[in-house]
């Protein structure tokens, strides 16, 4: 009897997801069956994928050939550590999201639930296939199915024109990226015609062609990940999609692009050149700063999170850039540190960003509002969602002791211990880059305080919020799962690094695990405890202990008396909800300090206005600098070409005749 290999298990999981999706078509209108049976089944499969990925880490690669597709061109599949870690991410994150979705999708949405179920599970299966693919053909097929299924998911509510536009933009950029990736694969085969990844690894590319392949991949995967300037689809598509889908796209799909970048940069294209890293570092820094600044000024909660995802992807790109530079100069220990930061941030972001997106989903369901200006005070009505969102907020702000801090800490450490790179001006870039990363981290805190404070704290800005209800049991379960992942990743960094170290070993030949393991599971000391160490559990325990002790001492020696009264507010009489900061008001300092970074249209009231109003609209510079001119040029060109279309048959005959004459003239024997 043949044994069940992990790669077979993953293939079966992909098939199971497809089967679950197809089962949804059997009863497309039966919301109860689909939500309560199929989505939990999908979550179970996700959990399985996660466990297989987790257990596989550290094993030697396995391959398989799947005889489907074109004749003579089977799908090559391969499971190695890099695939396994991202499969783990996909599995664990999707388990939580699917459980949540079981409670989220209900009657009366745009698309039929059965169709939604099919698209959702095809999306999951294609992401898994992207990770498993071992030749360009299989990769592109999976990549395109992922793009298409997510396009249909984004346009679930296709009755709104705005959502259709967002979906179109997403599709456009996804295909731009796909073309770029395809070209990159083409360059990497260097004319040998062998499209398998093994063939690409065997090719010796000249530095020029290797650079071309790498840059094409950076553009292609960057378009999927949301690197500036190909990020514009992200803030449109994320708010348009239903919340579990936004969570899946932001938490998991963006990571498949990171997977692609790592796969090409460290595995397929051969020895990296040092300046590739600098390019990735620069793009990452711009992306991170841009993303965080825009996220602070948003008034739509899902757009805020979408820009925050751009910021996180930027930080990941910074880490990839550092890794590439260190790797190119043969500083493998530092490269391993930076790469661990990259992988850790991928895992952490998958946890906390999915959590936050799902929380916005619950808020949306309870209040029908996405605009921050109409929310507020929901902690009283939705305590579960609020407290779980707080975990995501702290992690997202990069604060100890949760998951976001660990990766940020590792990233800053790898900046700090760059002991003089061989290039003098690289040495100057590194501290400036570290400064930008520090600024980004601090600004992320601002954005997250705004997000949490405006939605959950304060007075309710609308009367209707009084009827808001907390999340249902399925939704709670999904949120709790993701929140516990965030906490676990935060407090057990040494254990997690011990597992994901297999990837660093595979890609760089060295890792951190030996040195991390020396100091016990509670302490994270990637180099040595004298140089840098972090013990999140002690950290957490000290704070908890002083909180409890403080509380006990106060109660023991003084008293615990308390009474309620109206708020003081310096004795001002008017204390209605309109006296609080609005979302726009809260971010006013950022708009003022970073004014040139935004394209703003503002209207200020004057003293003579009968009906004074204030409005501010913040738009993306890149949209007007880059996309509008391109769109205009495309429109002008097509208008020019359209003049050829006279509509009269005589004119078309004339064209044919002229073409014939021209051909006869040109193609003379």
């Amino acid at each position, binding site marked *: 009897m043949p044994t069940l290999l992990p790669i077979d298990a993953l293939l079966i999981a992909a098939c199971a997801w497809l089967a679950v999706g197809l089962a949804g078509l059997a009863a497309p209108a039966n919301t109860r069956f689909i939500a309560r049976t199929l989505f939990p089944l999908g979550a179970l499969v996700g959990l399985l994928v996660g466990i297989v990925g987790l257990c596989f880490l550290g094993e030697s690669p396995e391959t398989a050939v799947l005889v489907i597709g074109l004749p003579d061109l089977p799908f090559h599949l391969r499971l190695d550590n890099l695939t396994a870690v991202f499969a783990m991410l996909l599995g664990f994150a999707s388990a939580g999201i699917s459980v949540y979705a079981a409670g989220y999708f209900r009657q009366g949405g745009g698309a039929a639930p059965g169709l939604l179920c099919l698209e959702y599970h095809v999306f999951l299966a294609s992401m898994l296939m992207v990770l498993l693919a071992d030749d360009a053909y299989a990769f592109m097929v999976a990549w395109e199915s992922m793009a298409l299924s997510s396009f249909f998911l984004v346009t679930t509510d296709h009755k709104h024109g705005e959502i259709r536009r967002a979906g179109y933009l997403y599709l456009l950029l996804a295909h731009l990226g796909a073309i770029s990736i395809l070209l990159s694969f083409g360059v990497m085969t260097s004319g040998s015609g062998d499209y398998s990844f093994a063939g690409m690894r065997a090719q010796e590319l000249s530095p020029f062609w290797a650079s071309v392949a790498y840059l094409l991949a950076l553009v292609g995967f960057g378009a999927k990940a949301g690197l500036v300037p190909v990020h514009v689809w992200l803030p449109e598509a994320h708010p348009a999609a239903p919340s579990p889908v936004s969570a899946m796209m932001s938490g998991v799909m963006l990571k498949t692009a990171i997977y692609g970048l790592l796969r090409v940069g460290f595995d397929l294209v051969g020895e990296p050149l040092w300046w590739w890293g600098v390019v990735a570092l620069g793009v990452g820094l711009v992306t991170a700063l841009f993303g965080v600044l825009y996220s602070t000024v948003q008034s739509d909660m899902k757009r805020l999170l979408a820009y925050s995802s751009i910021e996180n992807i930027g930080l990941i790109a910074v880490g990839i850039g550092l890794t590439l530079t260190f790797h190119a100069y043969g500083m493998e220990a530092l490269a391993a540190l930076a790469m661990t930061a990259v992988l850790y941030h991928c895992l952490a972001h998958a946890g906390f960003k999915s959590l936050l997106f799902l929380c916005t989903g619950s808020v949306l369901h309870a209040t029908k509002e996405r605009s921050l200006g109409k929310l507020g005070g929901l902690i009283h009505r939705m305590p579960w969602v609020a407290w779980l969102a707080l975990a995501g907020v702290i992690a997202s702000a990069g604060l100890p002791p949760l998951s976001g801090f660990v990766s940020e800490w590792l990233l800053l450490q790898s900046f700090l211990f760059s002991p003089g790179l061989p290039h003098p001006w690289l040495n100057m870039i590194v501290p400036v880059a570290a400064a930008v990363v520090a600024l980004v981290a601090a600004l992320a*805190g601002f954005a997250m305080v705004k997000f949490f404070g405006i939605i959950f704290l304060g007075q309710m800005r609308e009367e209707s919020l009084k009827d808001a209800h907390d999340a249902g049991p399925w939704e709670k379960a999904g949120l709790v799962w993701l929140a516990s992942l965030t906490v676990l990743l935060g407090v057990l960094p040494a254990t997690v690094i011990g597992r994901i170290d297999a990837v660093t070993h595979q890609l760089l030949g060295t890792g951190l695990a030996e040195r991390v393991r020396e100091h016990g599971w509670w302490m994270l000391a990637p180099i040595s405890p004298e140089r840098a160490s972090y013990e999140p559990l002690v950290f957490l325990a000290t*704070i908890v202990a002083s909180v409890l002790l403080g509380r006990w001492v106060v109660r023991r020696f003084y008293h615990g008396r308390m009474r309620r009264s109206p708020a003081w507010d*310096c004795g001002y009489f008017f*204390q209605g909800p309109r006296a609080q900061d609005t979302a726009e008001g809260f971010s006013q300092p950022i708009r003022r300090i970073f004014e040139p970074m935004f394209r703003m249209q503002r209207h200020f009231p004057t003293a003579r206005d009968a009906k004074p109003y204030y409005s501010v609209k913040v738009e993306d510079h890149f949209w007007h600098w880059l996309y509008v001119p391109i769109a205009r040029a495309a429109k002008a060109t097509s208008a020019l070409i359209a003049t050829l279309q006279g509509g009269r048959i005589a004119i078309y005959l004339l064209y044919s005749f002229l073409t014939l004459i021209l051909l006869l003239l040109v193609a003379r024997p």
Partner: protein
Amino acid sequence: MNFSGLLAQLFAIALALAAAPLLTGWVNQCRAWLQSRSAPPLLQPYYMLHKLFNKDVVLAHGASDLFRFAPFIVFGCMVLACAIIPSLSTDLPFAPSADTIALVGVFGLARIFISLAAMDIGTSFGSLGSRREMLVGFLAEPALLMVIFTTALISQSTSVATIVETLAHREFIIYPSLAFAGIAFTFVSLAENARVPVDNPATHLELTMIHEAMVLEYSGRHLALIEWAASLKLYAYSCLGLALFFPWGIAAGDSFLGLLAAVPLLAFKLAVGGFLLAVIETVNAKMRIFRAPEFLGTAFLLAVLGLLVRLLLETRV
């Protein structure tokens, strides 16, 4: 981790808890002298804490549980910060639990909680204070990180204890980068502790306050904890500044005598530091809130300059 180390650690925490209000009282007294007012008693902050702990908590109707937890969490964060920063000796069992980057994280965590608590009641001043605090925070935090990076590059470590040991027990070399870092650190500490050029701890003029605006709704034991935490923060920053820039006299081992000898030295350094703080607060006027970015931006640039100087000019030292 050994027993005497643990004892030294507990002693350091106890000293911080006990001495922090005294430092605040001392600064207030110096300020009163310099401004020719009659000074409040040196022990005034203790009377204040005692009074507040005795009073009932008056909680606004709209307050959630977050509002009630936040003071305890802020207090806990500050205790942890004081536990990590070597004030008397560098042999602290808690020190490995958080290095300097995590220390910045601790302050960040406290800031987030106090800002969120300020938004919780939903008053105009609360959210105003919270917004301004986050503004000061996101400007000051990177500058502080850059200062720390400079010292970390000198000592090849981000662990506070190692930094202090390296800086204290080296031969006397003047690092130009440390001068830049020191000025930047002073700027940052003024901003972070709600001191005069950026905020005014004595103000109750609504439109100018930051920290006070956030804690307006607090009363009783909650307010006492917040005030105590503010004192602890000033103490922690002072000790951090002393540890990074004037580390002489901090005991390296855990000998009891060394520890005892370090106490009067620390008291002297803190007294001088507190007096200088009062001088700064007296000769400066509070600036408009939108001058604060320039002030802190200067600090950030100075800190980055310090880092560059360290990397480009001092790498051979």
